[in-house]
């Protein structure tokens, strides 16, 4: 019943129980049979995957494997560059774009012998919480096909949940790894800002974006973090001491959590819109932590209710600047028969961007425009300082903080597409971590929510405490799965 871990896959490859070619083709067959209904993959280059798998098997036969993980396929979100593959960000404006180079994270996967496995769907330019903003097709939640998988890394979460890929890389700007992980019942990690290179990740909001893993369990996330993390001179925001040692942190897990202080931010539990079933599942998880001997500490994040507002000012401002590069000149879609250069800009962007991307670029342009900059953008940046102070103060009294990942379980397709503000408000628990630069993960609660749908438990830690965060999550996972 339980899905194989990456370590088990690696062992099966090592003992010759299965070859990389066999592993890949079994997954490709699964995509053929399941993904017509789910729609997690935008593109799967079968010939390329089979070639890489064959090369891995040849390395292994010659005793020259590149790492323990040689030959294991990893699905890649469509905003992370893989050389000579499409990288469209699920946008019409980049529909025909082919990456001339590898993202640093992809380079690191390949150095370990791992195989980039298809391009997984997302909300266009990572703007959305349901995958319904994909410029090509929505993805459906494998746990319930009439529901969304979450977003923006919805394709990544769905691919892992449906066992069409052993693991995936996504990106998280305001919850885009954690929320789809919650909706699909998998584990998703937003690492500390600066530990994973953003080189080759198409920028949405550069001060918030971070690449991270979506996996079946905490241990697999640790494996991927250790592979993809580390300083990169190509990313000026990359930290010097950024390499993680998460797998080490998961060795010799304790059987209890005595001495661990877990902060419960009261404002998060007083928020309007927290569904009762989600609240009950989270309460069960809190009780499980208590049984493991963890100490629950009431903490306060006094400015929590302003986080969504500040986020949608800062993220859209940065997006309006970052997405200025898509101008129909050097790459991407260019409108047909332009009258002049201004017409190239106006119509290429008008035709190439979807509605949500336009909405956010306009909002970002407005908050940066003359006369409004101080009232919106500068004020939001000052609010960001307040959030950081809130988090610093709260973490003086606890090791990690706990909350729901999302106030609801996966909602139905079409339920929120008419109301962008309602869609934004659902990010309330996840965005503060991006604004403050720390790390967080989502893992499924032991008790599911309404209709047996997964509920995500979010655990948050201060910057650079990724190892401690995963150790606590791994201990909890092991104890509650037993």
């Amino acid at each position, binding site marked *: 019943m339980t899905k194989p871990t990456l370590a088990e896959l690696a062992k099966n490859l090592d003992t010759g129980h299965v070859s990389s070619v066999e592993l890949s083709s079994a997954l490709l067959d699964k995509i053929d049979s399941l993904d017509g209904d789910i729609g997690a993959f935008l593109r799967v280059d079968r010939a390329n995957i089979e070639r890489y798998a064959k090369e891995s098997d040849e390395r292994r036969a010659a005793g020259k494997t590149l790492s323990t993980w040689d030959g294991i396929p990893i699905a890649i979100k469509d905003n992370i560059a893989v050389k000579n593959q499409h990288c469209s960000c699920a946008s019409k404006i980049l529909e025909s774009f082919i990456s001339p180079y590898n993202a640093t994270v992809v380079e690191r996967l390949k150095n370990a012998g791992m195989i980039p496995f298809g391009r997984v769907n997302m909300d266009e330019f990572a703007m959305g919480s349901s995958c319904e903003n994909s410029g090509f097709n929505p993805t459906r939640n494998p746990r319930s096909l009439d529901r969304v998988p979450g977003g923006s890394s919805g394709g990544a979460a769905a691919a892992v949940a449906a066992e069409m890929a052993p693991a995936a890389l996504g990106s998280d700007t305001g919850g885009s790894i954690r929320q789809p992980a919650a909706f699909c019942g998998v584990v998703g990690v937003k690492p500390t800002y600066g530990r994973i290179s953003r080189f080759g990740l198409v920028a949405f909001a550069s001060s918030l974006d971070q690449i991270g893993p979506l996996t079946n369990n905490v241990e697999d996330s640790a494996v991927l973090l250790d592979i993809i993390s580390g300083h990169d001179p190509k990313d000026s925001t990359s930290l010097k001491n950024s390499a993680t040692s998460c797998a080490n942190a998961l060795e010799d897990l304790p059987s209890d959590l005595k001495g661990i202080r877990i902060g419960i931010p009261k404002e998060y539990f007083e928020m309007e819109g927290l569904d009762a079933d989600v609240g009950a599942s989270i309460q069960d998880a809190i009780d499980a932590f208590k049984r493991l001997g963890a100490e629950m500490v009431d903490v306060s994040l006094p400015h929590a209710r302003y986080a969504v507002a500040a986020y949608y000012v800062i993220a859209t401002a940065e997006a309006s600047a970052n997405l200025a590069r898509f101008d*129909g*000149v050097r790459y991407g879609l260019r409108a047909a028969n332009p009258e002049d250069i201004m017409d190239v800009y106006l119509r290429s962007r*008008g035709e190439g961007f979807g509605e949500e991307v336009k*909405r956010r670029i306009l909002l970002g342009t407005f908050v940066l425009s003359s006369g409004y900059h101080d009232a919106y953008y500068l004020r939001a940046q*000052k609010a960001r300082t307040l959030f950081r102070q809130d988090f610093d103060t709260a973490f003086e009294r606890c090791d990690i903080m706990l909350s729901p990942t999302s106030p609801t379980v996966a909602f139905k397709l079409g339920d929120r597409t008419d109301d962008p503000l309602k869609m934004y408000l659902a990010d309330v628990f996840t965005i503060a971590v*991006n*604004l403050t630069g720390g790390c967080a993960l989502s893992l499924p609660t032991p008790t599911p929510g309404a209709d047996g749908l997964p509920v995500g438990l979010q655990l948050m830690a201060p910057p650079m405490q990724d190892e401690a965060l995963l150790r606590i999550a791994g201990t909890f996972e092991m104890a509650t799965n037993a």
Partner: protein
Amino acid sequence: MGNNDHGGRFDVDKIAELARIALPDELKHRLYSDMERIVGYVDMLAELDVSDVEPTSHAVRLSNVLRDDIATAPFPREQMLANAPATVDGELVKVPAVIEQ
């Protein structure tokens, strides 16, 4: 379809022009009303007392990050131009005339 037409606080025509996005009228109306609601929500930031607060522009506080001044191999021109929508003989990016004669 500006300020007065909507009776709101911003001129969506001007913002769309600054953002370089052509918008059909029907979409312009819809995006305008969405933005009115979103900006109305964002206005809660005005409640915060930020008089003595420094802004945070980034998640990590790094400055003056420079690489070593060593030339590295550039990308081949043909590889970079492969994604261009139009080129002159595969050597230059082609655009409509920018400077009038």
